[in-house]
């Protein structure tokens, strides 16, 4: 479940924000927000994607480094929401 979530999220990030980049360079622990890949607009775009794709509701205060900085964190958040 988590691995599938990670793969879906990774695929989305590569497609939407990092077209043309080497997929291997994006790991589960690559810093997305603190590394400058996700800014406020792309974070919200990602939130909208997660809500639509996984049928969860992410609150405004969860759109932060703690929850969305890595693919692992994102998958954990989705997992916690679905549990």
């Amino acid at each position, binding site marked *: 479940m988590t691995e599938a979530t990670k793969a879906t999220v990774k695929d989305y990030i590569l497609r*939407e*924000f*990092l*077209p043309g*980049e*080497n997929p291997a*360079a*994006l790991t589960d622990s*690559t810093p997305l927000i603190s590394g*400058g*890949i996700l*800014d*406020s*607009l*792309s974070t*919200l*775009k990602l*939130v*909208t994607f997660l*809500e639509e794709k996984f049928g969860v*509701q*992410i*609150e*405004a*205060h969860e*759109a*932060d480094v*703690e929850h969305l900085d890595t693919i692992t964190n994102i998958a954990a958040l989705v997992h916690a929401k679905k549990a």
Partner: protein
Amino acid sequence: MAKTETQLAQKTTVSIPRILPIYAFVAGGAITALAAGADLIGIAGLFGKNGDWQSKLMLSGLVIAAIGAALDLTFGQRGLLAWLKPIVLDWPGLFKFLTIAAQLGLLLVIMRTCYLEHNAFYEKVMPLVFYGFIIHHLLPRPYRLTFFIVLSLAAFLSVLGFADSAWLIGLSLLLIGICHLPIAFAARVAILLIAAGALTAARFGYMPVPWTKALWPILASMLMFRLIIYLYDLKHNQVPPDKAGFAHTLSYFFLLPNVAFPLFPVVDYSTFCQTYYDDDDYRIYQTGIKWMFWGVVHLLIYRYINYYWIISPEKVHDTGTLVQYLVTNYALIIRISGQFHLIIGILHLFGFNLLRIMDLYFLSTGFTDYWRRVNVYWKEFIQKLFFYPAYCRMRKAGNMTKLVVATTWGFLITWFFHAYQWFWIRGAFLLSLPDILFWLGIGLLVLTNSIYETKYGRKRVLVKGKATLKEIASKTLRAAGVFVVMSLLWSLWISPSLAEWIDLISNTEVSLPELGMTLLLIIAGIGSAMLVNEKWSARSTAAPKSRLAFFRFALPTAAAILLLYFLAQPAYAFRLGAKASDFIAELKMDRLNDRDAVLLERGYYEQLYNVHSFNSQLWELYAKKPDDWKPLTETDAVRKTDDLMKYEIVPSYVGSLLDVPFKANRWGMRDDDYEQTPPPNTYRIALLGASVIMGSGVVHEETFEHLLEQRLNREHAKGKYDKYEILNFSVGGYHIIQQLMLLENKVLAFQPNAIFCFAHTRDENRTSGYLGEIADLEIPYGELREIMQRAGLTKKMKHKKTLQLLEPFKYEIMSWAYSRMVRICRERNILPIWICLPSATGRNDSIYATELVRVATEAGFGVLNMTDVYDSEAGAYLQVAPWDTHPNAKGHRLIANRLYAELQIMDKTIPFAFSVAK
């Protein structure tokens, strides 16, 4: 197994007598530190008038600490050994610590030598930071946060004093306490809003408060945003319990550097807690040193721009001056950047590994990029509390609608909070059209850019490669575009009104070739900076900082600090040659620029003008000015007249002015009483001038007029003359035209032997401003009317316009007034002496006096140029208050002594009153 448990129990259950020695050691150390630092934190008075008890207490503390240490090492827990052993044995760590402490020490010396920011910072806060850092690091980790709070409170005590500090702490604890009341969240918010309402009423002055005005900006900057963030994070449990607590809360609100900086970064509570010692200690400290160094560099660059390049809007007339005005005013943002770097750097020294706050904003390649870089903390604050919640609330709306509404909301809040911040710091709500338009403009630009990025995306990379020349060129052009637009918007923001900004832009004769050249220069400048940055960041990416050895990481900053230290020392600066040495000396002086100095001075003559923005240093001075610190014209010491004089001193008035007694004689002079007809064989001198000559801010007995009169009578009376009388006809705010009228209508009746007409550098500009004000009145001087007509002055003309029109005629006006004065004097055998003083106390602005000296000399005055009167006391505090440039008693003594000496010299060429002196 049983034995081990018993040993553990013995270890954890420490007997009180065995632990007492270590407590004695800590108590002794604390007493010693308190007594040693008593002067620094302003409690030396507690130890007797001459500090009698201070040394005794220090000695007692040392003895207690020594006994505690001896007992601990012999009969006690050997806790001291356990504490010090790892510090001493960790040689690399000790060496890193000493390297950081040495850099901090050098930075402290540089800040003090360069008088960086203000004396509360470099004389009180920075020494506390230095000593505090050393003790803090040597303490075991669990005690560090508590020590940081104690150190912060010591800084507040040091700068604000006992009473204000007590109020500040009490009020803050009360408001923080409300956040933790065991009631519903909404109820806590409601109580906080009621408390904020009461404070608002007090800030408006509707309610008396027991604290001084100086407390408001500090109290406000501590609480106005942090309480909002703190409440939000409490509500959403944003901080894990293991990273939060009472000590975290107190240290978040009582941030050490806050007491010296009312404009303070909006630090996020959860980030503050979560980044606390989240990396290697020494790396965090060294990063802090780096930010502090860059803070110092920014502040010195700010001074360079501020002293040498800033021009006032009145000077803008062509492409060159327009671009100079726009670019230099925008560049002044570097001061805020410098302050914020210093603040964040200091916090790093105590373990708070916060992000860099302002990040190469002049190289922003788009408006969203600019918004992200110019104040990272503010962007995060708006994003977290307003943008995201607004966006997420509109789940059913389309993405574009959500983006437009949330961004507009974010900028509306930003505008409101700017005015809100201004209210708490200055005490008046900022509601101006330029301010609204400025935020509206930025909001629209960011929104447009965001829509573009949402539609077409933004290039992001996982691994930053070497930028090609084409990429650098493209970035440069975009950055230059952002820079130009922001400079224009900034000029709008700092304009007193929209009309004046339109006037500034539309009345400038712009030449397209010159504009093209200027744009090319901007592109070249930004391109060079971009190239260096790309090269540097490529190098940084190639060797990530985390992998760099500490000393390799520290070396560039340490070397740069050392270089700056040597440059700041006169002995080394001198070797660079006289010009470079003078330049460095000028940069080291903390002063207002010429424009602000004039505006500060004008504050006494006119309404507060153009100090509503954070762009000027003036607002800081005015923020400290007590409400009852009023210029002469706003007191009942004067009464209005219907002519060009506008006002005059009320005869026999008794009251106070600028916190000192102010008494007028029966003739309406701020002076002793004199008969209108001089006593026999008396040499009578009449003084004409404005507030400095009148003695604003000092008691009558301290004025140079009184001192000189006393000296003349003491050293020369009973010589050629039996008595000397100096009659002070000066009135605060009087210009040369008013002085001329005063001479004709009042002074002559007192039959003076000499007239001392005092001028200040740039009087010609002030006179132009005055003529603009009286253009609607009947002017009794035909020649003056004729000059004003030639200049094109009409009734109800704008201030700036009159200044521009009168600019070519300003010396002609002065020449006319001076010549008329001299003619009047000569006709009555009165000796006309003209004396020039600097505009601002403590300064030598002789370069501005040259033309005025020529005009006065040609008019026939005996000229005494005293623009260097304060040079002998360079660096001394000579003004009555930081926000008031009138000379204090010491300044008046300098003027009196110099004037006496000048008169003695002059007596040999122009016969004065000393020729037959005893």
